[in-house]
């Protein structure tokens, strides 16, 4: 492992779907242990960006490097937390959590201990033998997170993981995610369309613009950690939210008009 603080670096990333330029020449980097969120209007390519970093989609040009290695496809060095929980319905919580190690071929008794520790960490101790259909949406997202953490990834990629949850559960999950993240300080790239969620969670927020998708501004969130939920009502917090909202407001209006046209 290198001494460089840079964990993920992206250079000149461009992605087209046919004639549509989804991402234009994105270059940026994320440091080890940093929590970075991406916000932007729909159609700004934020999810596509995340999927390319995850190896689930190929870029037309440009490079993604993790610890200096060029990434060419998916792998267990990254843990992907999906928008829908995507749990395998025929597997129990335990078996779902262990799918990554199982695919990597390193499922053993040590791994079982790690899995049990992770399930405890995400608050699912005692639910190991439940099937997904027996769990609530919030619990399923906890399994989704534990599954990504089970491969002990260098980089955690999260694609609007709380968007399908109700408002209260979502807030609880945000604090839970913070608590879990404080434990290991993984490098996280988190996509959301919810500005207050991005501000609350992140060290930095990448604000994307659309047509073509690109980074409009990078906002450093200089708020102390750990962050209690009521921080969301402080003037400093509101200032960040306002600032980011102003950056994307016009884009959002344009995309809303387009969707209704």
């Amino acid at each position, binding site marked *: 492992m290198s001494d460089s603080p840079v964990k993920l670096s992206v250079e000149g990333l461009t992605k087209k779907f046919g004639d549509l330029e989804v991402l234009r020449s994105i270059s940026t980097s994320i440091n080890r242990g940093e929590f970075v969120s991406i916000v932007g209007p729909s159609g700004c390519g934020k999810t596509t960006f995340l999927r390319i970093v*995850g*190896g*689930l989609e190929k870029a037309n040009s440009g490079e993604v490097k993790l610890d200096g290695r060029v990434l060419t*496809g*998916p*792998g*267990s060095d*990254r843990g*992907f937390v*999906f928008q*829908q929980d*995507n749990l*395998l*319905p*025929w*597997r129990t919580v335990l078996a779902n959590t262990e*799918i*990554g190690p*199982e*695919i*990597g071929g390193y499922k053993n008794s040590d791994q079982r201990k790690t899995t049990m520790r992770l399930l405890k960490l995400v*608050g699912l101790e005692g639910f190991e033998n*439940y*099937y*997904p*259909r*027996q*769990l*609530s*949406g*919030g*619990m399923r997202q906890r399994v989704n997170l534990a599954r990504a953490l089970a*491969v002990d990834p260098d980089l955690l990629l999260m694609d609007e993981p709380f968007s399908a949850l109700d408002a209260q*559960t979502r807030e*609880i999950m945000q604090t839970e995610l913070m608590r879990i993240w404080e434990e290991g300080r993984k490098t996280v790239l988190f996509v959301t369309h919810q500005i207050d969620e991005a501000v609350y969670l992140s060290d930095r927020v990448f604000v994307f613009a659309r047509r073509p998708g690109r980074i409009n501004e990078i906002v450093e969130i200089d708020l102390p950690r750990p962050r209690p939920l009521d921080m969301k009502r402080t003037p400093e917090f509101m200032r960040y939210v306002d600032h980011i909202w102003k950056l994307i407001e016009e884009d959002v209006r344009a995309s809303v008009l387009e969707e209704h046209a």
Partner: protein
Amino acid sequence: MSEAALQSSEPGRGKSFAASFLAAVRARMWGIGSVVGGLALWEFVSRFIVGSKLFLAAPSQVAVALVNLAGTGELGKHIYISGLEFLIGYVVACVLGILLGLSMAQSPAAKQALQPWVSGLYATPTVALAPLFILWFGIGILSKVVVVAVLVIFPVVINTEAGLRTTSVQLVETVRSFGANARQIFFKVSLPSALPFIFAGLKLGIGRGLIGVVVAELFGSRAGLGQLISQSAETFNMPALFAGVAILAAAGIAMTSGFGWLERRLLPWRE
């Protein structure tokens, strides 16, 4: 945890056998009543309204015929022959059907080549070809095995293929994100997600297979329940005819519910 809205059901324990038996009867009261009432009505109609065994045998007369046929060993022979025909044809059709369904799901070329035949023959009442199979494969069990297999194979192929084809793209992507290869995707996602479909195909095959056995035997055979039925019809022995039908019905019910039980054991994750 506030969101821990669980729906786990714990079966009642600690009750005596008699009490739980009574509770089970009460829970199925309308079903049991309907069957008992139907049999009573049948008995009444055949004894007091039709009044002739030549036209309609009463359930009690069918029961007597069953006991008599069983006593002479005739019934056992018929059941053995029909059961053997069904079993061989069914197993062969299931194995071949699953393999064909797999290949259709895996290879677009195989799918294109096989689809017209599968759709066409599934819709065709292939049981009408039974006399032809008897001509080709003789009056023994082989011709019946073939008829059963031909009837059973199509729902199995169709369901296997459909089950694999409808595998969730999101689930495949999830395991792919962990670096899964094609083999791992198949065994960890596609196959388990297709299992309920495959099971449904196997279940559909039971009814079709039983029809195959009987119809093929009606067209020409030396033994079997279909032969018992046709022979009884020729001699106007209605109680024996109904006895054959009753055995077939019982076999169908037993196999279908056996499958239901197996399904709950093997696929406990379903509702």
